[in-house]
C-alpha cells in the first residue's frame, strides 16, 4: 500500500515534478549562456582573429616604384600603370558540369584572343587549380587589351540547360563572374640602352635585379597597399559588399649624379669604340673631380633594360647561331646575358699598366725623391729579371715630365726601387687599391690580398718592379679612376657615388648625399706637379690622342698584357680636364682591342671625344694658345637681305669663300646660317632665288687623310671642315671618323667634323 501511495499520480505530484524539470531546463539554459560567455567574451579575440584570417583576403595593391632621374631630372626609369587579368577557377565548379565546361571554353576562347595567350595552357591551368579563386591569366596588360576585357566582362555566357524538372531553361552568367582585372605596374626605360649597366632592371615581381634598381631596391619600392575584401567562397563580386582599401605608398624617387647628356657622349663614344676596335668589352667612367660624383658610367656591350633578356649584340648573336649543340648554346646564352648585364666598370678587374705610373710618381714626389734626372739605358735588371723599355735604344737621361711622357718603364722601376716595398705599399693602400671604393652600386669587385694584389709582407723586389709600372696586380676601373681623381682634387681621395638625392613621391628631398673625403693621400703641391707631367704627356707624349684644342687635358695611357690570354692586351686611358682647374676625371678601358692595340691608340681618342663634348656642354671656355688661335673658327656674318654683289666683295675682306646660287639680286637665305662657326676661309652658300633648290653635294670619305689633305678635299667639295682631336702640332695625324657619313648627300656649305688621331709616339710600357 505504501508503494501505491508513493506512485499515486496527483496534480500536486505532477507540479512538483514540473518544478524539477523547470530547474533542469533552467540549468541547461545557464550552460548555454555560460558557453556564450566563453565563446563571445573570453575567447572572442582568438576566434575573431581566425575569422578575419579566413574571411578577409588581403590583396596587395602594387605600390608604384620610384622614378630614377638624372641630375637634371630627366627620367631614366619610370613605372607606368598597366593591368593584370585574372581568372577565378573555383567559380567554374559551381554550376552544372555541362554549363561549367561551356563557360571554361567561352572564357578561354575570348581571353586567348584578346590577350594573345595560349588557350590550351589557360584551360589546363583553370582545370588544374579549380580549388583556387585566383590565377593570373596575363600580367602587364596594356590599356587597349584591358579595355577589350572590360567590355567582355559586361556580356553574359548564355546556354540552354535542363532544369531539375527536365525542362529547357536559359541560363546566363556574366563573364565578370569568372574574370577580373586589377592594376599592375610596368617599368619603362625611355632611353633604352643608355646607362643600362648602371641602372640595372627589374624582374617580374617589380623587384630590382641589377644596378641601381637592385642597390636601391628598398628605397624605390614603396609600401604595397592592401585591399581587404570578403574572401567569400563563391564570388568576387561580394567584394563590393564589404571591402576596405589601404592606399599604396609609392616608392621614393632617386636622383642620380649621372648627367644624361654626358652619359650619352660616353655611351656613343664607347659604342663606336666597341665597333671599331672589335674588343671584348670596353667601359668608362666620368667623375666630378671635386665630389667624386659619377657623371657617366657605361660598359659595352650592354642591353635594353626594357627587355633585358634579349641578346641584341650582333657578334654574340652570330656566335650563338654557330653553336650547334642545344645545351651548349643555352649555356652560351646564359653567359652572354650575364655579360651584357654586368657592369664591367666596377665588377671587372684588370692590370692597370702604365696608368698606374701616376700613383708611383705621386708617391715618389710626395716622399721627396729626386726624379729630374734618371737614366734609361733601354733595359734594367732587378735580381734575375730583365725589364726592357719599349724604346730599346734607351731614353737616356730623363726629366720627370719626360719619364711620364715617354712612359718609360726603367725610369719607373728605378723610382719604385728607390721608394722600396714599404713606402710603395703605403701609397698603394692610401690610394685605395686594397679596399672597395664603396660606390653605391652592387657587385663591386672586392680586392683580395694575395689574389688581386701582392700581400705586403710577401712582396719581393721583382714584384715591386713590375708593380711600379702597373703590372702583376689587378684593379677595377672605378678604383683606378678614384685614385687618379685624387691627383686632380689636390690629393683628396673621394668616395665615388651615383645617387645624389632621394625624393618622396612629391619630389620633396628625403636625403641628399654629401661628398665624402676619404683621406688626403698626397699634398696639394705633389698633385699639381703630377698634373703638370700629365699635361705634358698629352701634349707631347704617349697620350697625344687625348688632346683637345682649348681644353688643357691631363692624362696617361696604359697598355697591359693579359696574363690569361696570350697576345691580348687591355688598353686604357685615365685623364683629368681642364688641368688648370680640374672639373672632370675620366677613365676608358678597352679589353682585348684588335688591330691598333695601345691605350694611346684605342682609349685616348675615346676619352678626347668625351672630354671635348662634356666640357663644351658644361660651358667651359676654351683657352686657345697661339697655334690654336690661328686655326680658330670664325662666325658667319648675316648676308640675308644684302645685295648679292656686295656680299661677294665683302667676302673677300672676311676671307670667306662665297658661292652664289640663283639669278636674283638679293640674298634670300644662306648656308651656314648667321652666327655659326666655320674655319677661317670657310665656305658659305647664298641663295638669291625663291624657288631654287638647295645645292646638294656628296660627302667624301675622309678616313685615312692627313689634316692637310682633308682640309683641301673639304674645300673642293664645298664643305666646311672642323678638325677634332689630338694635339694640332702633332705629326702623322690621320682621320678616323667623320660626323657626316661618307656618300651621303648634304647641303653645300655644311660643316663636317673630322676626328684625327696619331699612331706614332704613343706606345707605352
Amino acid at each position: 500500500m505504501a508503494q501505491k501511495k508513493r506512485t499515486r499520480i496527483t496534480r500536486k505530484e505532477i507540479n512538483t515534478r514540473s518544478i524539477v524539470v523547470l530547474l533542469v531546463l533552467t540549468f541547461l539554459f545557464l550552460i548555454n549562456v555560460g558557453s556564450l560567455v566563453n565563446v563571445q567574451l573570453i575567447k572572442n579575440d582568438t576566434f575573431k582573429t581566425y575569422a578575419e584570417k579566413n574571411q578577409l583576403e588581403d590583396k596587395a595593391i602594387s605600390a608604384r616604384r620610384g622614378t630614377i632621374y638624372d641630375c637634371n631630372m630627366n627620367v631614366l626609369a619610370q613605372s607606368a600603370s598597366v593591368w593584370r587579368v585574372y581568372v577565378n577557377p573555383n567559380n567554374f565548379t559551381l554550376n552544372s558540369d555541362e554549363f561549367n565546361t561551356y563557360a571554361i571554353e567561352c572564357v578561354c576562347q575570348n581571353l586567348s584572343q584578346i590577350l594573345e595567350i595560349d588557350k590550351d595552357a589557360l584551360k589546363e591551368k583553370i582545370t588544374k587549380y579549380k580549388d583556387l579563386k585566383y590565377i593570373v591569366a596575363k600580367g602587364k596588360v596594356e590599356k587597349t587589351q584591358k579595355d577589350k576585357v572590360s567590355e567582355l566582362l559586361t556580356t553574359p555566357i548564355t546556354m540552354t540547360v535542363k532544369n531539375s524538372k527536365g525542362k529547357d531553361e536559359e541560363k546566363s552568367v556574366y563573364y565578370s563572374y569568372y574574370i577580373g582585372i586589377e592594376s599592375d605596374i610596368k617599368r619603362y626605360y625611355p632611353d633604352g640602352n643608355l646607362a643600362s649597366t648602371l641602372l640595372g632592371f627589374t624582374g617580374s615581381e617589380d623587384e630590382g635585379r641589377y644596378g641601381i634598381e637592385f642597390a636601391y631596391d628598398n628605397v624605390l619600392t614603396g609600401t604595397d597597399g592592401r585591399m581587404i575584401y570578403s574572401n567569400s567562397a563563391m564570388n568576387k563580386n561580394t567584394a563590393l559588399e564589404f571591402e576596405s582599401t589601404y592606399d599604396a605608398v609609392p616608392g621614393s624617387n632617386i636622383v642620380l649624379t649621372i648627367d644624361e647628356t654626358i652619359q650619352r657622349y660616353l655611351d656613343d663614344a664607347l659604342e663606336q669604340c666597341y665597333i671599331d676596335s672589335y674588343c671584348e668589352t670596353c667601359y668608362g667612367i666620368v667623375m666630378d673631380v671635386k665630389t667624386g660624383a659619377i657623371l657617366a658610367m657605361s660598359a659595352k656591350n650592354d642591353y635594353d633594360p626594357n627587355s633585358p633578356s634579349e641578346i641584341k649584340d650582333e657578334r654574340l648573336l652570330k656566335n650563338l647561331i654557330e653553336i650547334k649543340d642545344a645545351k651548349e648554346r643555352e649555356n652560351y646564352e646564359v653567359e652572354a646575358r650575364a655579360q651584357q648585364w654586368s657592369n664591367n666598370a666596377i665588377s671587372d678587374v684588370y692590370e692597370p699598366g702604365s696608368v698606374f705610373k701616376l700613383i708611383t710618381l705621386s708617391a715618389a714626389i710626395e716622399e721627396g725623391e729626386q726624379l729630374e734626372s734618371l737614366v734609361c739605358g733601354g733595359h734594367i735588371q732587378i735580381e734575375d729579371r730583365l725589364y726592357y723599355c719599349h724604346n730599346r735604344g734607351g731614353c737616356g737621361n730623363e726629366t720627370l715630365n719626360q719619364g711620364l711622357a715617354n712612359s718609360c718603364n726603367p725610369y719607373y722601376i728605378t723610382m719604385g726601387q728607390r721608394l722600396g716595398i714599404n713606402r710603395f705599399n703605403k701609397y698603394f693602400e692610401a690610394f685605395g687599391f686594397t679596399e672597395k671604393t664603396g660606390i653605391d652600386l652592387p657587385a663591386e669587385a672586392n680586392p683580395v690580398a694575395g689574389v688581386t694584389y701582392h700581400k705586403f709582407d710577401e712582396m719581393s723586389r721583382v714584384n715591386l718592379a713590375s708593380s711600379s709600372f702597373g703590372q702583376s696586380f689587378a684593379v677595377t676601373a672605378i678604383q683606378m679612376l678614384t685614385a687618379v681623381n685624387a691627383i686632380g682634387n689636390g690629393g683628396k681621395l673621394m668616395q665615388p657615388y651615383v645617387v645624389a638625392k632621394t625624393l618622396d613621391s612629391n619630389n620633396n628631398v628625403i636625403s641628399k648625399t654629401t661628398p665624402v673625403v676619404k683621406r688626403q693621400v698626397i699634398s696639394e703641391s705633389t698633385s699639381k706637379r703630377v698634373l703638370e707631367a700629365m699635361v705634358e704627356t698629352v701634349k707631347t707624349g704617349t697620350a697625344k690622342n687625348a688632346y683637345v684644342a682649348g681644353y688643357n687635358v691631363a692624362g696617361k695611357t696604359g697598355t697591359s698584357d693579359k696574363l690569361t690570354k696570350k697576345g691580348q692586351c687591355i688598353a686604357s686611358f685615365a685623364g683629368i680636364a681642364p688641368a688648370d682647374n680640374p672639373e672632370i676625371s675620366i677613365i676608358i678601358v678597352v679589353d682585348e682591342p684588335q688591330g691598333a692595340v695601345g691605350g694611346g691608340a684605342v682609349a685616348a681618342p675615346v676619352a678626347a671625344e668625351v672630354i671635348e663634348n662634356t666640357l663644351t656642354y658644361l660651358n667651359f671656355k676654351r683657352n686657345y694658345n697661339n697655334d690654336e688661335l690661328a686655326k680658330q673658327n670664325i662666325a658667319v656674318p648675316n648676308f640675308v637681305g644684302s645685295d648679292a654683289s656686295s656680299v661677294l666683295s665683302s667676302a673677300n675682306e672676311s676671307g670667306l669663300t662665297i658661292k652664289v646660287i640663283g639669278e636674283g639680286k638679293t640674298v634670300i637665305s644662306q648656308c651656314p646660317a648667321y652666327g655659326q662657326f666655320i674655319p677661317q676661309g670657310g665656305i658659305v652658300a647664298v641663295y638669291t632665288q625663291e624657288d631654287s633648290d638647295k645645292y646638294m653635294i656628296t660627302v667624301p670619305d675622309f678616313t685615312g687623310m692627313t689634316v692637310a689633305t682633308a682640309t683641301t678635299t673639304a674645300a673642293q667639295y664645298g664643305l666646311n671642315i672642323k678638325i677634332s682631336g689630338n694635339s694640332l702640332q702633332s705629326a702623322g695625324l690621320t682621320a678616323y671618323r667623320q660626323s657626316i657619313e661618307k656618300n651621303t648627300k648634304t647641303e653645300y656649305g655644311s660643316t663636317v667634323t673630322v676626328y684625327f688621331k696619331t699612331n706614332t709616339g704613343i706606345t707605352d710600357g
Partner: protein
Amino acid sequence: MGGYLKKFTKFMEEMYSRKVLFGVPLVKAGPKEGESKGLFAKGGFDIIFLILVCVLLTIGIIMMFSASYISAKYSYKTNYDALYYFKRQAIFAVLGVALMLAVSKINYNMFRDVAPYLFGISLILLLLVLIHPATIEGKDNIKRWLQIPIIKMNIQPSEIAKFGLIMFLAWSFERHQKLLEVYGTKASIAYIGIVGMFALLVYMEDHLSGAILMAGIGVIICFLGGTDWRIYAIGIVVVALAVIIVISAPEKIIKGYMAERINSWLVKDYEDTGSRWQTNQSLFALGSGGFFGLGLGNSKQKYLYLPEPQNDFIFAIVGEELGFLGCTIIIILFGLLVFRGFQIAMKSRSTFGRLLVMGIVTQIGLQVILNIMVVTDTLPNTGISLPFFSYGGTSLMMLLFEMGVVLSVSRSSRINKNLKA
C-alpha cells in the same frame, strides 16, 4: 500456448470495452468542470504566451532573412534570388500564425480522442520512411523525408512523431493512471520502452539528433507523468557511463561520420577545414560578435563561410550580428516561453492538458538548448534546428500548430483570470 491466447483474447476484449486494461480500470477522461464541452473552446487564451511567440517569431524571421540573404543571392539553387528564403519563410509564418489562431480556438479536449490514432499514424510513418525514403537534391545520403503522393510535398515523419509521442503520453498518463499505480515500476519501464522504440526508429533513419530529442522529450514526459523516479536515478548514471565510454573511444562504438564528428569535437582543431568546418565557422562568427555584436546585417561569416547559415547554425549569425547581449536576450525569451508554458500547464484542469503543454514547451526548450550547445561547440555537431529561427516551412507550420495547442489549453487553464473568478 493456450494461456497466451487466452490472455490476448482478454486484452482485445478490454481494448474493445474501453473500460479496463490489464485488469485495471481506466480513468474517465473528458472536459473537466469549467471547461467547454463542444468543438470550440470558450474563454480567452493566454496573451503573454502569444506575445512571447510573436516576438520570437518576428526576431526569428528577421534574423533568418539577414542570415540567408547572401547565401541565397549567390546560389544557383535559389536562382540568385536574395529574398528566396525570406519570402518562403514569411509566407509560412503568415499561414502558420493563422493556423495557430485557428487551432487555439479548438477545444483541446478534442485532441484527446485523436491521440491514440496519431500515435498509430506516427508509428506507421516512422516505419514507412525506413522502407521508402524520399531523396532531396543535394542531400542524397539523408533519408528522413517521406513524399506525400499527389501533392508531392516532403514531410519529416520524426517531426510528426514527436508531437504524436507527446500527445500519446499525455493521453495515456491520464487514461491509464491506475495502471501506473498498480504495476508501478513495470508500467514505468513499459513507458520508457515505448519512448525508446520511437527513438530507435528515428535513430535508424541515421538521424541521431532527432533520436536524442525524441528520447529527451519522451523521458521528460514520462517523468512528469509519474513513472517511478528510481528509473531516472539509475538512467542518469547509465547515460553518464555511456557518454564517458563513447567519448573515450568513439570510433570503436559508433559508426562513420558520427564518430568523426565526436572526435573532431574532442580535438577542437580551429584550423580544420574538414568535419569541423561548420563548427569552427560558427565559433568564429560568435567570437567576432563579442558583447555588442557587429550590428544587424553586418555579419561577415554569412558571406558563404558558414554553410547554410539559415539552417541549424543560424544562431551563430545571430551571435555575430547581435552579440552576447542579443543572444542572452533571445535565450531569456525562450526561457520565458518555456516558463510560461509550464505555468499554463500547471494550472490546467486536466492531466492531459498539463502533460500536453509541458511536452510541447519542453520540446522547444530542449531544441533551443541542444541547438545552442552545438553552435557553441558544447556538444558535437548533430543537426537540431532552432525553433522560430531556422529556415523550414513545414517545421515552422508544425511549431506554430503546437503553439496553437498550447494557446487552446490556456483558454481553460486557471491561469486565465477571467475563469479564475
